[in-house]
């Protein structure tokens, strides 16, 4: 579904990604793990075209993404969910959601909104509130819900657990699992919290200093004590 080939990217003299290759399969949760500075966020930003790759290629559902502008990706079914700070705080909850729906190229309907409100009841109660009044957990629900409004086939999730209580993280990961199981959604999950991520993922890709050091089924990674201690911190 998503194929990353020999991807290199960086900032000035810094090589943040140094020949990264992996594939994220359809209908699965692929977790990209690694410590701070491993290149996880750069990888996500390069895949979704916010950051220009130096070389290598990214293909999604048959499309070569290397020449497309970031704003075209939602229409192809690829939605990048920024971390919870990515809510547009000046807009209301519902305006954030409507904006997400517009990314698909057509006007979101009331049914589209209701579907997201069913998944995240707290958002329904706050639909007309300014997004700035939401808690951290509600903001994370909002960015995920907003991405779902575009009816994506694949979600790119950036650190959904960042700064959230473990219970909220568990809720969000449960929901992801449900969406994958029931709607065939594919997920590329970038996480520093490796333990939680591996509990929900089918496959794990471990990055260290911009290189892939492991690419295994999640249960294999979780069982590899040496690797876990060296790169994943648990």
């Amino acid at each position, binding site marked *: 579904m998503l194929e990353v080939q020999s991807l290199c990217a960086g900032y000035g003299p810094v090589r943040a990604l140094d020949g990264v290759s992996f594939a994220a399969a359809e209908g699965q949760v692929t977790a990209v793990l690694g410590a701070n500075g491993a290149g996880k966020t750069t990888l996500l930003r390069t895949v979704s075209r916010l950051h220009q790759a130096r070389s290598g290629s990214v293909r999604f559902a048959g499309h070569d993404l290397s020449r497309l502008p970031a*704003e075209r990706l*939602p229409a192809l079914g690829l*939605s990048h969910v*920024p971390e919870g700070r*990515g809510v*547009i705080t*000046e807009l209301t909850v519902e305006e954030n959601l409507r*904006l997400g729906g517009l990314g*698909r190229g057509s006007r979101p309907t009331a049914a589209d909104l209701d579907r997201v409100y069913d998944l995240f009841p707290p958002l329904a109660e706050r639909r007309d509130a300014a997004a700035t009044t939401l808690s951290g957990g509600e903001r994370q629900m909002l960015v995920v819900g907003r991405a779902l409004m575009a009816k994506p086939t694949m979600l790119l999730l950036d650190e959904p657990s960042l700064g959230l209580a473990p219970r909220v993280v568990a809720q969000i990961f449960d929901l992801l699992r449900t969406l994958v199981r029931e709607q065939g959604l594919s997920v590329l999950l970038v996480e520093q919290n490796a333990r939680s991520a591996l509990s929900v993922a089918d496959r794990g890709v471990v990055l260290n200093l911009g290189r892939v050091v492991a690419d295994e089924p999640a249960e294999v990674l979780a069982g590899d004590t040496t690797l876990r201690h060296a790169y994943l911190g648990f």
Partner: protein
Amino acid sequence: MQQFLNTALSGLTLGMVYAAFALALVLIFRATRVVNFAQAPMAIVTTFIALTIIDDGHSYWLAFVAALASGLVLGAVIERVVIRPVEGKSEINAVILTLGLFIVLHGVAAVVFGNRFRSFPAPFGIRGFEVGDTTIALTGFGVFQIVSVLVVMALLVLLFRFTDLGLRMRAAAYSPEVSRLLGVRVGRMLTLGWALASLVGSLAGLLIAGGSLVHPSYMDSVVVFGFVAAVLGGLDSPVGAVVGGLVLGLSLSFVSGYVGSQLVALAALLILVLVLTLRPGGLFGTAQERRV
């Protein structure tokens, strides 16, 4: 009593014109955090385009529409050609560019349209209405000024609050990167923002020009008051711009009528200092303090 009423009425019409200028500044500031110092000469260029059409014997309304349309195009072209190359860099780059544009457009307007005073017609009467046997300081053109600014303001509110395009424009202004991830063509929204602002600016130019003499620099002082009005309103709030314009127009009218017209500029400065001391974010501003 009559003097009070007349002072208030002329303050109201003047305030509406300040409000239109403030609105033009606010539209650009909230989209790009840039204060467009070239607003005055941009409006001068479009006003002179209208005057050229009128002098050629065409109707005022044709000239009116042409000025607004050329304002729209001028704003879009300036954003694409001048501002776009420095977008995403420090805002000071764009601000300096608008200062440069101020000088260039001023010069170009003087060369093309002539550096002299020319009279600009008004589409409605410019003599005060008569109520009973007294003439009040509200003219047909004054009513037109007030109504057209209110109409433009209402249209902008409708656009931003209730349309998908308006939602995209607001999102692009507040959070460009997140908006791109949601499929918003941010560059196009910024161009549109400049175009709309320039259209509102050209309307303000026409409104201030009607029934008076115009000159390539006739608008500079009005824009200074428009700027004060925008800052009073908080610089990023369209409603604030209009309220700021009215507050300023009324206050200055009363200063001029009751204290002395030579004190108007000083009074504007005083009001600005007073408001910014009591409410540094402006009357309606949502801006937070930040390090610059």
